[in-house]
């Protein structure tokens, strides 16, 4: 699989710095899982974080900080931060033509719901972040999503098939980031369905009342 569209540097850096919201973070996790090139880029940005930490002027610690830490270590487990990472699979997930990304294993994914002719969506609930607006779209061959723009930021990871929104073609493995400067109408290629994972911060702004109704039905 040749990936042609990758997350941009600023987004990757925000991930490494820990300043991304949970939904956007999940989208990057899914992309990284399938993209060796971006895993390498992320390794560099994490190393940059390490160098940044290493070169910071030290702050003064309380006089008995080390003793306290050693005492906590001797007291054994019990730290909140120690909760195991989301390895449990939450409920049944709907069928996908590809394997579910491991990064989504802790997510709750609802059944496919009809949102228009040949168009289905479902809600993805990110662990511990129920307010994150993450959803999946399954759009039939040749179908067009309603034209829209974005109040803030929309991330899309293509899981299956391909679409073209006039800016470029996006295929399985590709990643896209759009904001208020982009007004687009993603159109699925004629040779098969397209399935995408999307995370929206802010809202989508649809053109036309029918599209707005459709947007409202998926909580946008």
């Amino acid at each position: 699989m040749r990936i042609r569209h990758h997350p941009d540097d600023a987004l990757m850096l925000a991930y490494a710095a820990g300043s991304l919201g949970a939904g956007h973070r999940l989208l990057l996790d899914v992309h990284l899982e399938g993209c060796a090139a971006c895993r390498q880029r992320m390794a560099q940005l994490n190393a940059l974080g390490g160098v940044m930490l290493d070169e910071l002027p030290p702050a003064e610690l309380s006089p008995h900080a080390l003793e306290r830490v050693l005492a906590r270590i001797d007291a054994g487990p019990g730290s909140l931060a120690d909760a195991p990472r989301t390895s449990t699979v939450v409920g049944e997930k709907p069928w996908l033509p590809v394997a579910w990304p491991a990064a989504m294993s802790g997510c709750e994914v609802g059944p496919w719901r009809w949102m228009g002719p040949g168009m289905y969506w479902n809600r993805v609930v990110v662990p511990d972040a129920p307010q994150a607006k993450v959803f999946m779209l399954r759009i039939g061959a040749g179908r067009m999503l309603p034209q829209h723009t974005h109040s803030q930021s929309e991330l899309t990871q293509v899981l299956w098939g391909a679409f073209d929104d006039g800016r470029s073609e996006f295929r399985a493995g590709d990643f896209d980031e759009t904001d208020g400067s982009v007004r687009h109408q993603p159109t699925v290629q004629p040779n098969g369905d397209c399935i995408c994972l999307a995370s929206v911060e802010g809202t989508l702004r649809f053109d036309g009342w029918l599209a707005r109704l459709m947007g409202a039905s998926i909580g946008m």
Partner: protein
Amino acid sequence: MSPDIPEHAPEPDLLNHLLVCVGSKSDRQAFAALFKHFAPRIKSYLMRSGSSESQAEEFAQEAMVNVWKKAAGFDPAEAAASTWIFAIARNLRIDHFRRLGNRMEQIASDPHEDALAGAEDPEPTPEEQLFGAQCERAVRSAMAALPPEQQLVLRLSFYEEHPHARIAAELGLPLGTVKSRVRLALNQLRRRLDGMQP
């Protein structure tokens, strides 16, 4: 045998070695040396990221407890000690905001886990990739070669939830300019790193 605790800032290779000693034989002297170097810097990082002094102290201590507990999983071939410990401190911060019901909720995976995730995409080949101490060294020297204002922009990018606003305030730049400055700095960094690929 425990490694000596140096008075000056320890070399990255020594820090890696200390962390391996903590992981493989619960070496307290090695842990004390790591603590001495990293705990004050973690506190500094968290204070710059908006934590109060007492909260940063508490986080720094908790981060070091996590370093002890997770040290057995540290592999210097995958990430340098500073990279690995940075990820622990960062994840603690994300986790804290999650508990506060903020937007930054999900606990991130460690950088070495990212590196190990299934490799569906065949490129770049493993020989072209830089991980672990090699990656850290390359990033450190590429960073050092950047103009000071670009180094500053990158450093500030790590500090808080809204780094762009912080950078704008600190450098007296319009907010709109900051994003392009960050991109420019990352571009320069990448250019230098690409020149160093084996």
